[in-house]
């Protein structure tokens, strides 16, 4: 380990240091200046983003730079996700502004927890050893448990935090058990060493059990059926900006891990695990979309929709081909921005906790806030995968990957369920444009406006000129795909 190695860790170090500073500011007398916290947090995000970009120059020309005994690596894949995470956290910061000032909760600790979560997510993206990944995941999870319960005067929020905590801990334990079994069989935590060991090995029960437990743990994080039950309650109970974070950043991080672990470590047993994951994906799409139809609470509907989107994304892992991996990257990005935009609109309608949650609150929105209503339509279409929005590009790659890999039936389930999903996405469009009447009042702060505008820009740009993002995604994932082909 040299200084250069430490430099590769710079973004994580900055995030962790920044988080610690944010935590002690109120102790040093900053409590009174709560409004400063947002700017401090945004500055921290800017510096972190610069460090992430800087770290790419440090490894220019090299596919992957493993360091710390090959437990941590900087590569284009991790940089892609880290930048996405930084942007998500920055946008969640903007989303949180009104909530925090309205509810008079302490701001510094809140942002500190978000920064810690970011640190964990970045470790997840860069982890090339199961133990690094696990620690990153725990850091993210612990921060999320607290954030979910941040609405501490509300029963629902506390309940959500407890549910999330208990189920999350159990899933972590399952994940850890899976890791230990895999370690037992392969004798290593490193993904590349595991892959090498597996390539000469016949299928055995302990290994399969380990992989399945690992997959189950990760499926909990991405909220795939049957590990999804926590999602609706937590999304509804948690403070809305945190629901936004859980459904975007936290899921994106879990997908980064899912993709890396399965593409790097387990291609050798693809045949064995792909059918199990295919069943999980199909169930997620079916249960998520069907359950979403009956919801009248928008947050709950989004929770079920996010379950179904976990199912779509899983197609990319099941397919195990170039297209699939790229599909996961691009779909994650597309999904994150569309979702953040929707959460921004919900926040706009919220007043003291409960408005903005029922479909009726959206009634006649296009008269009161035409821009918000229009963007909302674009986001909903993007989630539904209708061209020319970004969601179409994302779904296109995932479906194509599944068709290419011979999972035609899964692709059919996916498209049928996409059609079903339009039903409940359209309900919001109907409420906003076609139904008369007054819904909730709107408070459209500049921060929310910014989040909406940025998400809208990304959603439309990726939809209309997908060439650029696709090139980026190819660059970010080609070295992982290489490994699959080598096999």
């Amino acid at each position, binding site marked *: 380990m040299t200084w250069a190695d430490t430099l590769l860790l710079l973004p994580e170090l900055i995030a962790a240091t920044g988080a610690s500073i944010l935590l002690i500011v109120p102790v040093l007398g900053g409590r009174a200046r709560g409004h400063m916290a947002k700017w401090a947090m945004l500055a921290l995000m800017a510096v972190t983003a610069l460090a992430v970009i800087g770290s790419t120059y440090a490894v220019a020309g090299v596919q992957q730079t493993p360091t710390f005994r090959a437990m941590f690596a900087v590569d284009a894949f991790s940089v892609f996700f880290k930048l996405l995470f930084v942007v998500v956290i920055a946008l969640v910061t903007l989303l949180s502004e009104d909530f925090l000032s309205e509810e008079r909760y302490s701001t510094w600790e809140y942002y500190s927890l978000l920064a810690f979560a970011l640190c964990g997510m970045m470790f997840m993206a860069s982890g090339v050893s199961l133990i690094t990944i696990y620690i990153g995941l725990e850091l993210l999870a612990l921060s999320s448990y607290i954030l979910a319960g941040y609405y501490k005067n509300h029963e629902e929020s506390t309940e959500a935090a407890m549910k999330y905590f208990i189920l999350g801990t159990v899933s972590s334990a399952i994940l850890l058990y899976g890791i230990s079994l895999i370690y037992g069989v392969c004798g290593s935590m490193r993904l590349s060493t595991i892959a090498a060991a597996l390539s000469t090995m016949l299928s055995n029960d302990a290994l399969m059990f380990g992989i399945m437990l690992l997959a189950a743990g990760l499926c909990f994080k991405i909220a795939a059926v049957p590990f999804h039950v926590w999602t609706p309650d937590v999304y509804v109970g948690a403070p809305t900006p945190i629901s936004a974070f859980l459904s975007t950043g936290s899921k994106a991080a879990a997908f980064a891990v899912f993709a890396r672990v399965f593409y790097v470590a387990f291609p050798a047993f693809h045949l064995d695990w792909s059918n199990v994951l295919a069943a999980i994906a199909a169930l997620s799409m079916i249960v998520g979309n069907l359950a979403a139809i009956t919801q009248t609470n928008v947050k709950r509907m989004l929770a079920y929709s996010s379950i179904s989107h976990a199912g779509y994304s899983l197609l990319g892992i099941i397919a195990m081909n170039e297209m699939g991996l790229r599909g996961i990257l691009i779909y994650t990005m597309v999904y994150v921005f569309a979702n953040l935009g929707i959460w921004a609109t919900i926040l706009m309608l919220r007043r003291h906790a409960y408005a903005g949650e029922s479909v009726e609150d959206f009634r006649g929105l296009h008269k009161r806030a035409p821009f918000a209503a229009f963007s909302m*339509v674009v986001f909903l*279409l993007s989630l539904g*995968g*209708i*061209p*020319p929005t970004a969601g*179409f*590009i994302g779904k*296109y790659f995932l*479906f*194509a990957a599944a*068709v*290419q890999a011979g999972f*035609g039936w899964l*692709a*059919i389930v996916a*498209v*049928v369920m*996409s*059609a079903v999903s*339009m*039903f409940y996405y*359209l309900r919001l469009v*109907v409420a906003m*444009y*076609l*139904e008369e009447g007054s819904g909730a009042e709107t408070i459209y702060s500049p921060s929310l406006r910014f989040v909406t505008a940025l998400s809208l820009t990304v959603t439309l740009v990726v939809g209309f000129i*997908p*060439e650029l993002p*696709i*090139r980026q995604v*190819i660059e970010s994932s080609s070295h992982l795909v290489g490994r699959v082909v080598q096999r």
Partner: protein
Amino acid sequence: MTGLLTVVLFLPIAGAILLVFLPKDIPGPIKGGGLLVSLLTFLASLAIVGRFHDGIGGFQLVESHAWIPQWGINYTVGVYGISLWLVLLTTLLTPVVILASWNSIHKHPKEYVISMLVMESAMIGAFLAMDLVLFYVFFELMLLPMYLIIGVWGGKNRIYAAIKFFLFTIAGSLLMLLGIIYLGFQQVHLTAGGVPTFEITQLYGLSLPPHIQTILFFAFALAFAIKVPLFPLHTWLPDAHVEAPTGGSIILAGVMLKMGTYGFLRFVLPFFPDASIHYAPLLICLSVIGIIYGALVAWVQPDMKKLVAYSSVSHLGFCVMGIFAINQASIEGSILQMVNHGLSTGALFLLVGVVYERRHTRMLADYGGIARTMPVYTVFFVIAMLSSVGLPGLNGFVGEFLILAGSFQTHPGYATVAAIGVILAAIYLLWLIQAVFFGPITKDENRSIPDIAWNEIAAVVPLIIMIVWIGIHPNTFLRRMEPSVQQLLATVRGEQPEKVMTASLAAAATRSPVAQTLLSVRSGARMRGRQGLSVGVQGPKGAQTEVSVLRVTR
């Protein structure tokens, strides 16, 4: 001028974007602007006809730019005999619709005009796209404006109708998307770097194994059958039409339904020729059921608009029957009938809208004898009705005659039954005329209805001119589609690529039983791709003989 097609395609959307910046409260300039843009588009589309070469069957005025090069998706547009007149129908109907809605749309006129223009671009794009993914994008882009047109400006039950329309269509088209992806990846291994191709001219040469063809055939056919709509997938149509505003109905019946029939011609037949021939009787049967069923249901409708809507089911049935009869006359008739139906049904919806504006009812029982109060209106209505019935000298006759004559060659039984549909059409439409226009005036409100207004006349006259033109001189239109139809038929029958092979084999067949066997598996042999094919044949003495034939590419 290069880029003519791109101009026609994007002019309406460009106009729509400009309109966004106009203030809401000046409906006059907004409608005027929309009309101007759509008229300019129409003029530009006339230039397409001017530059179109009659004798060529392939695509013309082709433009191609990379769009998503990594995945072989291009912006490629081109026009050929089959799409030419449909593009013109679209550009003609849009100004007609804007004119017709001049005084009837009071709520959000700006958004209405913008939706119409976006719709126009999407429809033109779907007709022109030569790349499957591009086609799909335009195909889906049509949904949202139409959904809004029905949902915002529609009648009482509009939300239900809008959602039903949207879900029906999207369910079919998403399955088609899978088919598109699958097709695109068929030739991946043939190109450098494993890039798929969605260029339809390249996919036309592709010959797929029969079972794959069957699956893909149904994936595509379902999407288009919903759009047509073919019996029994038609249930969304009456709802959508009844609830849609007049302009929406005209566009829906006039152009959008043609996406389905056009899709059959452009994609289903040439991509999956074996499956199309094999399942043609099924589709013909469904369309004949649609013809009779649509006509019978139209007969008993008390609501004028519903009557016209069900007559669409019946008329579009003729189009699909013509397509799947797979011969020159029937397909040409079918294409012409698509245009005819756009004109005559467009005119009928427009005219129904005219009286609805004045009386706010569409029930037949509420009218009677209005020929006396609205003489000019009556003339237009009767012409449009006669065109729909298929009176010789007007356009409907030419189309239906060609379809029936062509179908009679291949499927005489079905053609005979379908001919009954023509008689039924005469019955229900004459019944409509009788009930609305003639007889004594029973309702006092009908004594003082103002006759058709200037903007409505301006909207309907172009349609009447076209109705008469096609009826008297159909060759203007048929001449330009003929080469493309011939080429389509050649592709479906697999003649061109295999002509040489078949001939040489036929010569050899007299000598060798192996060649005889090969000749008989000709259709099966199509499946193997372009460079060559090898077929294992059991020789006469039980020995496995490998025969390789180099396939002649076009």
